[in-house]
């Protein structure tokens, strides 16, 4: 089986790859968003702390 055939998924390429794409996009977002928000929060808190006690 070559790559072309693999990607074609026996004619079901659209359904299979869109499914996998949406699935992993959602899964990735569920990790990336909280991590980003947490880092932002830490940055905010650090700035606030520095302002309070220079």
């Amino acid at each position, binding site marked *: *089986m070559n790559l072309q055939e*693999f990607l074609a*998924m*026996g*004619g*079901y390429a659209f*359904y*299979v790859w*869109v*499914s*996998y794409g*949406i*699935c992993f996009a*959602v*899964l990735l*977002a*569920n*990790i990336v968003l*909280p*991590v980003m*928000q*947490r*880092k932002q*929060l*830490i*940055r905010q*808190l*650090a700035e606030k*702390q520095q302002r309070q006690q220079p």
Partner: protein
Amino acid sequence: MKFIPDPIGRFCHRMASPPHFYALSGKLLPWLTGIFLILLACGLYGGLYLAPPDYQQGDSYRIIYIHVPSAWMSLFIYIVMAITGAIGLIWRIKLAEIVAISSASVGASFTFIALVTGSLWGKPMWGTWWVWDARLTSELILLFLYLGVIGLYNAIDDKRTASKAVAILALVGVVNIPIIHYSVEWWNTLHQGPTVTKMDKPSIHVSMLIPLLLMAIAFKFYYVIAMLQRARLELLQRERTAAWVKKLVSEPSNSSS
């Protein structure tokens, strides 16, 4: 706390203390992520490449490797949410409350994935994007239950109160889920007849089953990772005035991790 022996209770208490949890989860996360990625790679390789096409559905059945594990996770996470919610409600353990609400968004995501992939799988099999099939319908109702939990949590400003509300709602939901599921199944057999047996049991061969189980385990690990990430955020937000957070923030080495 009467039924629990003192040393165990004390141990749990220490484990459940926010700074300890934050540090421990930070150490565990790289390992969990590593295991998840390995399992995922094996599962995908087995499912998308090694497993033969289904003799009826061709390659379209390969959606099963994300659809079915997502559907399993959607139910599993709701139950975890109800149990941790109950623990938080009864023993007032802050960490259990946080785990409960952090699970909700992950569970809702899995429910959403199960619905979308079910629809994408249904299109080539049934010819339409949506069929009022028993499993898709109960999955849709489950999504509403999750959205209710998340909506209620966001609507209440005081997060301790919100956690209690969420726990009560999750417990009510968990009692109702079997009833809803049974009623939907019953409704479906009456109205539709046996239309969609094709999707229920693709002739499962060992070479198809092993990747499916690998994906299921990988998704379990994913759930722990995503839940912990969300819980760490939630914890910092709630404890932003606590001494340990101030210390954490002031240490430059920690602020990046």
